[in-house]
């Protein structure tokens, strides 16, 4: 089933690259996030509840912010043409042949120490964002 999600993700990335409208690209990004969440669910069914929640929060935040930004900006004519750089990223293909680590035991619980740390990170980033955008 995972290859089906891979094909869907590939199509969505091609849609992001090909489409001309920023808002349509943001919507494609949202569907890509949902497909990644589904792929994690397929990989580890133990992760379903917490991860789906986290990814939905992430996707909604990204969608809101990107759509607001896209609505306030306008496209200019200049295009950054770096297709060769994009093709060079395919040079990572031979790494598929490197043998990876074996699948270990699944830990389906979040360390409680992460909650204050991530809350502090988010608070800090929101404060920095407010200072950057309202200064």
């Amino acid at each position, binding site marked *: 089933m*995972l*290859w089906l*999600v*891979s094909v869907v*993700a*590939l199509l969505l*990335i*091609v849609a*992001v*690259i090909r489409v001309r409208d*920023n808002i349509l*690209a*943001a919507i494609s*990004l949202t569907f*890509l*996030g949902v497909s990644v969440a589904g*792929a*994690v669910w397929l*990989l*580890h069914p133990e*992760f379903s509840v*917490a*991860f789906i929640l*986290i*990814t939905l*929060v*992430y996707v909604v*935040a*990204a969608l809101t*912010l*990107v759509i*607001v*930004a896209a609505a306030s*900006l306008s*496209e*200019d004519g200049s*295009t*950054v043409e*770096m*297709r060769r750089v*994009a093709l060079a*990223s395919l040079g*990572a293909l031979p*790494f*598929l042949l490197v043998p990876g680590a074996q*699948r*270990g*035991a699944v*830990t*389906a*619980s*979040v360390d409680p120490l992460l909650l204050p740390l*991530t809350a502090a*990170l*988010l608070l800090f*980033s929101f404060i920095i*964002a*407010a200072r*950057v*955008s309202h200064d």
Partner: protein
Amino acid sequence: MTELIFLLILLAGGMAAVAVANSLVRVIIGAEVGIMAGIWGAALSGDLSLVAVAAVVGVAETVLMVAAVYRLAKEGYV
């Protein structure tokens, strides 16, 4: 094997979206695809704590990048 192909699709797709971008919003979208590759890589390790950290860092960097784009738009660079 399919897991690694999916990871490579996300990484190379994000790079490609950044490389052919024609606006800063498109650059942000490419970086988000790269963050999704990070979340998927954390999920491959089988530890939910890593996945949670990757998702929270994704939210934080999204907020910072969009704030930077607002600032650039206000100063007329976009």
